[in-house]
């Protein structure tokens, strides 16, 4: 999964080692219980004595992870930013309650958070981000640092723009395709996650059967041995099914990650659309400004433009100012092209490779698990 040899991971090992419950007062001064996760970092080149150095560590809540991710999203809109594990337990397969305090959920979330950090740390661009680095190393004051970047304001304005409806005149075909792919991926995976295909309920029954048997063998005389061995068999079966359930959960988690990745992908496309739109607007602007310049130069007013009128009414810019503005627009357009599209495309390729690799592995282990599940005779068969 992680590409070894990219920036941050070369230098340090990162892990989310533990989770703990805390209580404290929240923003509205009410008592709340929340979970914190221990992030451990350790330099890769250990001292030559061979003893493992004590890792640096700090505690972070889920909301801080969210803050980090939002920052990354705003700062690198053209990158597919790795997703966080789900906030609330949706798509719950095995448990009936979607309780955030449930130890299993917390454990899976811990794994997901570690995964997130590793993915970011192995990303060629994201891993060198300063805020990310201080997230891992500075417990206090990190939040303030993030807010100081002023990304929130940017985030708000982007959000507004993104939510507005706009139409792009010449949509970039590649991005359109990518968005379409993102849509399909998301739909397919959510369907799979919805299908509650598992035998957990049956397993519970098997376990109760086992209990029955152990009581039963006590009262049967001649069948005693048989019942005992059946009981043992079912015990073994129940244990093995437990393993399978875990594997299924793991598979579900892998699918979920890519479900959220699909989301991130679509977000990139959307942002690109926005940029494209702004680009088009800028080009339009540039064209009309160029036109104006011409008109002014030749003294002919060819088209009646509101802009022209207002600039006449509200004061004219000096030619130098106008030139400067035009130059700025042109560079903006170039940069837009350059930065967004190219980087985005590189990142998308990278994402594709990663996704193919990960999903291939996930699918293979899923298939193996399914087959082995079918091979095991269902416990009651054994009973009879």
């Amino acid at each position, binding site marked *: 999964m992680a590409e070894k040899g990219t920036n941050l991971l070369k230098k340090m090992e990162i892990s989310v080692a533990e989770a703990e419950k805390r209580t404290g007062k929240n923003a509205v001064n009410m008592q709340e219980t929340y979970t914190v996760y221990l992030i451990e970092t350790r330099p890769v080149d250990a001292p030559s004595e061979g003893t493992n150095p004590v890792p640096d560590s700090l505690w972070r809540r889920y909301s801080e992870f969210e803050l980090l991710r939002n920052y990354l999203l705003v700062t690198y809109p053209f990158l597919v930013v790795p997703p966080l594990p789900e906030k609330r337990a949706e798509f719950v397969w095995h448990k009936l309650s979607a309780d955030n305090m449930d130890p299993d959920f917390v454990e899976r979330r811990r794994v997901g958070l570690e995964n997130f950090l590793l993915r970011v740390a192995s990303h060629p661009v994201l891993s060198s981000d300063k805020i990310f680095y201080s997230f891992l190393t500075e417990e206090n004051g990190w939040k303030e640092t993030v807010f100081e970047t002023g990304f929130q304001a940017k985030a708000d304005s982007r959000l507004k723009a993104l939510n507005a409806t706009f139409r792009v005149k010449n949509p970039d075909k590649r991005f359109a395709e990518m968005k379409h*792919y993102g849509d*399909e*991926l998301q739909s*397919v*995976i959510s*369907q*799979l996650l919805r*299908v*509650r*295909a*598992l*035998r957990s*309920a*049956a397993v519970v*029954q*098997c376990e*109760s*059967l086992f209990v*029955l048997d152990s*009581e*039963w063998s006590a*009262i*049967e*005389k*001649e*069948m005693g*041995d*048989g*019942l005992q*061995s*059946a009981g043992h*068999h079912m015990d073994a079966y129940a244990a093995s099914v437990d393993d399978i359930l875990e594997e299924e959960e793991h598979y579900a988690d892998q699918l979920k990650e890519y479900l959220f990745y699909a989301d991130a992908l679509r977000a990139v496309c959307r942002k690109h659309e926005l940029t494209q739109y702004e680009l088009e607007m800028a080009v339009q602007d540039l064209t009309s400004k160029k036109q104006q310049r011409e008109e002014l130069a030749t003294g002919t007013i060819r088209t009646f433009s509101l802009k022209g009128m207002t600039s006449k009414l509200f004061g004219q810019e000096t030619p130098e100012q106008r030139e400067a503005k035009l130059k700025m627009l042109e560079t903006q357009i170039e940069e837009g092209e350059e930065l967004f599209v190219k980087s985005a495309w590189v990142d998308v390729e990278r994402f*594709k490779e990663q*996704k*193919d690799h990960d*999903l*291939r592995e996930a*699918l*293979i282990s*899923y*298939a193996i698990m*399914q*087959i082995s*599940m*079918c*091979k095991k*005779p*269902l416990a*009651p*068969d*054994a*009973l*009879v």
Partner: protein
Amino acid sequence: MSGSVVDNTVSSGNSSAAIPTDISGPILDLDEDDDLEVFSKDTTLTDGSSFNASMQTSPASMINQYKFEEEEEEVDTKDIFVTVDNPESHVTAIETYITYRVVTKTTRSEFDSSEFEVRRRYQDFLWLKGRLEEAHPTLIVHPLPEKFVMKGMVERFSEDFIETRRRALHRFLNKIAEHPIFSSTEDFKIFLTAESGELTSHKKQGPGFLSRMGETVKAVAAAVRGVKNRPQEFTDMQEYVEAFSQKISSLDKVTQRIVREQKEYLEELKECGPIYALWSQSEEELAEPLKTVAGCVDRCTKETEEQVKHLNDHLNPVLHEYVLCADTLKAVLRRRDNIQADFEAKTEALATKKADRDAESKVLSLAWDSLVGRSPEEVKQQKRQKLKGEIKEVTFRLSAWAWPD
């Protein structure tokens, strides 16, 4: 998913009115043959059979029992073969019902010919069972499939239901045919051979509903009286049957639930395959693996379908039958208790009356009778006669129960 068939049919020789021959068939088709051996020994009704023995009145029938156990070992000495198949539905103005074809092949002399074929409906089976139970209240009659399914999961005329019922009816008749006493009863013979008209008229004879009522009333009275000195073996048996009944009922319920949930799982698994196939269309590198997974899921679906079917067709009916057997056992034990209570009451009555008879004088009653104008001698005579008669009757009744002392 294949297992070699272990031939255990014959080794389960220690049961009489019990399961072996029939059930071990489907059981042996399953996997995990290591466990099979142990299970083909069905002993639940073994105790019942020794229980039977204690209730046999004559040494002759005990010999029958013995011989039957030997017969169990050599299946080819069976001289009567009964099958139930071919359900058909009949529609009349009043109702719709199903009849089953009952085919009998036999070499027994009491049958007029060697092959018979009749059609019977569920009510007829019920009738037969009732008759056998009446005639032999302390013997175990194999249970019939239930009249209707409580939970309404299954419709009365669904194929599944009819097939399950047919199988259970088939087992029922075979159990009766194998039973030394039941299979030689007149009722059984008529059931197998009579044309429908004959059967109806035969049904009308003999003690009917009212006598059944009488029995129930007596039973309730006896239950209220309670049993004083129940022999230990029956108490043990009672406890065992209670415990067994609980266990097997839970097992039955759990298995039914497993089947239900497996079916739900199957429904959803079926959806998975196509989703993977759909996904493979949007992918390039992953297209191949996805298609393979889709294929794999389809295969798994088929396997699971088979498993579910197997559970449903073989395990469930067996478990359910045992539940009914446990109920039957309980009922038989209850009846036995009632009879014992009855016996005890009558013994008491006998003792009292004997005491009465031996009493020299009953001053008060003599006085009364002289008032009425009878001579004391006459009265004594009358009384003696009356008591004698009563004693005779009670003793006669008691002897019918050949109580092992």
